[in-house]
């Protein structure tokens, strides 16, 4: 751990990526993530082998990522909701071609141009693949700037490990907020060599010709390819699920929330505990794979669940799937860039407790 610095979420993510060996960044301006490309444009040219390029569109940026990842580099792009929609085409191809990369989405309100304020309404898009075809991405949802740093570095390792894109899902608040950060010293784990990368080939050079491709015209071959992808996803579900549980052991009411919303839910939980209501918090850190286990466990003893999101209710579907009808699952959400307040969450739980009596 280095010195403690006060850093903006966006800048901290960019620096963490560079520390993790990211040398290529392709992006396009969109609020509220602009400090990521701005930071990269300042830092990468000063780092050996570093290259920042502002693309002509999000579509071009993600395809530059495809080319750079295909050439074996650690590469990142970032955007916010409307821009991430544009990138979906490329993300689908990147998954199909089994290329590693890191994508950051600082989510803003939608649909359409929506707003530039924080939101979590891209949950479905992020956790169900997002583009066309049958696929998944690892989705990491930091709830502090420090965690954003740690998850960004982890994201590069996970992307390389599985040859699959990893999405960091933040929101305008995580991106714009400044918090103390200690930049961890990055230690690269043992990862397989990128023998599949297109770096130049000739007969007898010791490997097969690299073909970076997502086209499998023979239905049987494509089905095999899809099964192979899903075998990877099964391993991810086994090994990469992350969450944080707080005070769930004796909780009558369990709040499920991620990212920014989880911070507010934590404050609400403390206040409710002071008022004598036993509340716990489950904070998914990976949105995909979704942490079913702690929710199933809590469903054994809790009276009810409350999912809080900055959306009209998306993750709540996954919570309900995990609870599987055993206990009521209520929902509270704000949208349009409005962040739920501690008081609102406290009232929700107090009402649930009242109704239970």
């Amino acid at each position: 751990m280095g010195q403690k610095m006060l850093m903006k979420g966006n800048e901290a993510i960019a620096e963490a990526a560079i520390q993790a060996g990211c040398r290529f960044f392709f992006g396009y301006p969109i609020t509220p993530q602009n400090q990521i490309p701005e930071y990269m444009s300042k830092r990468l040219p000063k780092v050996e082998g570093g290259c920042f390029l502002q693309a002509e569109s999000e579509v071009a940026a993600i395809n530059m990522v495809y080319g750079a990842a295909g050439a074996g580099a650690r590469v990142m792009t970032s955007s916010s909701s409307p821009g991430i929609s544009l990138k979906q085409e490329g993300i689908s191809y990147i998954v199909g071609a089994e290329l590693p990369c890191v994508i950051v989405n600082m989510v803003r309100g939608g649909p359409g141009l929506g707003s530039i304020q924080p939101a979590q309404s891209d949950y479905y898009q992020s956790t169900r693949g997002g583009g066309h075809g049958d696929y998944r991405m690892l989705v990491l949802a930091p709830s502090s700037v420090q965690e954003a740093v740690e998850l960004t570095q982890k994201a590069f390792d996970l992307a390389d490990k599985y040859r699959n894109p990893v999405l960091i899902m933040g929101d305008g608040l995580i991106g714009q907020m400044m918090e103390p950060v200690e930049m961890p010293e990055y230690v690269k784990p043992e990862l397989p060599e990128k023998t599949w990368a297109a770096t130049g080939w000739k007969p007898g050079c010791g490997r097969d010709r690299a073909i970076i491709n997502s086209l499998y015209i023979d239905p049987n071959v494509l089905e095999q390819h899809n099964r192979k992808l899903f075998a990877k996803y099964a391993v991810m579900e086994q090994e990469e699920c992350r969450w944080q549980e707080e005070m769930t052991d004796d909780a009558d009411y369990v709040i499920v929330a991620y990212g920014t919303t989880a911070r507010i839910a934590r404050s609400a939980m403390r206040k409710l505990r002071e008022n004598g209501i036993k509340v716990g918090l489950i904070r998914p850190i990976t949105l995909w794979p979704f942490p079913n286990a702690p929710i199933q466990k809590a469903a054994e003893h809790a009276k009810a669940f409350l999912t809080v999101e900055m959306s009209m209710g998306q993750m709540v579907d996954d919570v309900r799937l995990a609870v599987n009808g055993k206990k009521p699952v209520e929902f509270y959400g704000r949208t349009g860039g409005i962040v739920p307040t501690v008081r609102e969450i406290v009232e929700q739980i107090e009402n649930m407790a009242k109704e239970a009596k």
Partner: protein
Amino acid sequence: MEAQFLIAGFGGQGVLLIGQLLAKAAMHDGMNVSWMPSYGPEMRGGEANCAVVVSDEPIGSPLVTEPPIAVIMNKPSMLKFTPSMEKGGLMLYNSSLIDIEPDREDITAVAIDCNGIAEKLGNARTANMVMLGAIIQRTGVISIDSAMEALKATFGPKKEHLLPINRAAMEAGAEAAK
């Protein structure tokens, strides 16, 4: 202990810097801190504000929707944020640019002649540091020394010669808030 600040004014008045120095200094004092700017299609001269939370516990929301402490540098911000202030809250306002008082009986309002004091010191641009001195005097969340350490780090060697005038501004602001 948790202190929540809302600091608001025109863009260019240095309100974001007041917040950053507050957060940085408190961080170096070992506290948990967060700094959250308003962001949007705002240009220089438009409204700017930031929320700062200082706490000895992990910080929940970095947003300050019902400010217990409001630092108000211009009149539009006074009109905008007075109604949402927490009951019993403290408002420090820049009376050089604000010719009214907050219309709330249930808060404590302290007028600081930020621009006037800064001009008397010979550098009008230190009005925000006058206000920071007042904040320090009234809340005790940080000290002038730790604020100066944070300012030194922010300024870097190029602007080091400006440190004494800024310290004088903070001290004058603290004096005015007594």
